[in-house]
């Protein structure tokens, strides 16, 4: 097929260049996405050859009979709202501060970004140990400051566990937003800032009327990326609480995994996955459209 005459055609060359990446991508990323939809309409334990058609049974089950689905759904919702608000907000504040010419700002940037590069599963392990009710960091420090009354079983109390987990998540992810905002701040027009200052604008006014509008694009990107990454929260849940206590930290990605890979109900697990996939698409598709329009406008 690839004789020398053919190799001269740009089309053949393109195919050869595209094949490895697109092949792997189609088989191992796109196909599973299609398969998860198919599986969600079937009854299957993952082992036997028997994959019976189940219609909408799996969906009916997770929506009406599954005691955990809506708990996981709610937790995912709370988690997403919190991760869209807090890490980007702290990240923005840090970026604004570290954009000034300050002593050791490079070192401080590096420190804030350091947790981002650590395996989420290691973050989970670290923080689980720091939350240890007896010898962990938090309760030790609180005792040192005479705050014994505030001591909690951080991951063992169902009212607190989700938020304890979120603190660890924030610690890890603030640096990511910070770096994106720092990059965005480079696009703020210096001369415009200086002109405003000379005209007597206060720092707040400069921020409100010059910096903030210039950061709008970055803001959208950070918020979309935070939403997507919060929807797929898995490692940190698995490593810190496994969804407990009493499902109080259960989330959709984790619950889909549990149904499929631990309870061996691939149909129900996949139905949960599909709902999560649809939620993700509802964020991703408008975003891709928006960024494509922006690209075209930039040309």
């Amino acid at each position: 097929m690839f004789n020398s005459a053919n190799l001269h055609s740009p089309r053949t060359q393109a195919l050869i260049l595209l094949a490895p990446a697109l092949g792997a991508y189609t088989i191992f990323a796109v196909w599973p996405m299609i398969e998860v939809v198919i599986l969600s309409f079937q009854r299957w334990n993952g082992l036997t050859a028997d994959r019976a058609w189940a219609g909408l049974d799996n969906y009916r089950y997770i929506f009406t009979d599954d005691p955990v689905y809506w708990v996981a759904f709610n937790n995912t919702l709370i988690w997403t709202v919190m991760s869209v608000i807090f890490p980007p907000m702290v990240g923005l504040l840090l970026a604004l501060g570290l954009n000034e010419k300050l002593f050791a700002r490079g070192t401080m940037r590096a420190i804030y970004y350091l947790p981002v590069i650590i395996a989420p599963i290691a973050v989970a392990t670290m923080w689980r140990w720091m939350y240890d009710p007896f010898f962990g960091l938090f309760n030790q420090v609180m005792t040192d400051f005479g705050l014994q009354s505030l001591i909690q079983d951080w991951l063992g109390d169902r009212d607190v566990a989700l938020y304890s987990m979120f603190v660890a998540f924030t610690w890890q992810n603030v640096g990511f937003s910070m770096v994106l905002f720092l990059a965005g701040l480079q696009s703020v027009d210096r001369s415009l800032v200086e002109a405003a200052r000379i005209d007597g604008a206060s720092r707040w006014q400069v921020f409100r009327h010059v910096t903030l509008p210039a950061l709008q694009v970055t803001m959208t990107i950070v918020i979309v990326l935070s939403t997507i990454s919060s929807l797929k929260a898995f490692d940190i849940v698995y490593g810190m609480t496994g969804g407990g206590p009493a499902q109080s930290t259960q989330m959709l990605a984790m619950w889909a995994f549990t149904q499929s890979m631990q309870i061996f109900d691939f149909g129900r697990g996949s139905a949960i996955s599909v709902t999560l996939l649809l939620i993700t698409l509802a964020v991703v598709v408008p975003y891709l459209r928006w960024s494509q329009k922006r690209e075209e406008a930039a040309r």
Partner: protein
Amino acid sequence: MTTVSMVQLEEEIVRPRRDPLLIALWVALFAVALIWIAPFVFISFTALKTGNEIMTTNAFAPPRVVAWDNFSGAWVKGNFSTTFFNSVIITVIKVPLGLMFSAMAAYALARIRLRWNKLLLVFVLFGAMIPFQVMLAPLFTLVNSLGLIDTYIGIILPYLAFGVPYQVFILHGFFKAVPKELSEAALIDGASHFTTFRRIFLPISLPVLAALLILDFVATWNEFAMALVLLQDKNMWTLPLGLMSFQGQFSNNYGQLNAAIVMTVLPAVIVYLIFQRYFVSGLTSGAVKG
């Protein structure tokens, strides 16, 4: 503090436009940075303390007697020689290979005129946004049906697949911006696209490739969810799986547990500290443009 940084500090402070607000800002940023780095200090100190010392001394007190044997103990108990080896093999094969494939595809999409270029690009970019955490079960089913569970290739292929979209996205943007004259001259001289790609496009994209290489190294080194599903045999586990199992079994041996955390995290931290600037450029070149 070295003398150099002290001089810098003086300059900053003595500077005519010394601003109380900036000083307050610096103090606040510095205080928060201390909080941010505190967990690392706590983990490292605990990793070097004996069990007795952990229970009796302050969390931020440096170890009195350095208990190096926490590390050797954890290394043996946690089967680190196996998991470390597996992580190295998988990362060393996957990262360069994946980057090569992505660069080839990105070149074809950016520089060879095809009718379905745009469609293909959207098809690939779409994947960058889709969480693989949603597809763990079908991924297991697929790899299982190919008989590749518990093999290197069975985990490397999915890793490749999920690395492609982001890398193609970044490299496509880069290749697209290369001036036409550069490649057309070569093509008119009769060079094939392969030659043009290798001789012209790869060399000029080295900084971008380096940034992507570092980012992908860390992502692959840290990956947990797919490995959890696709590597069931203890002897095939990667470092994150090993750490997770260590936590499950020996969570009461605090010294060794923290030594295990340090050993898992350290390679990525070292790479980060050496190649810091690449992280930022790799992340921002794609996400934020002007």
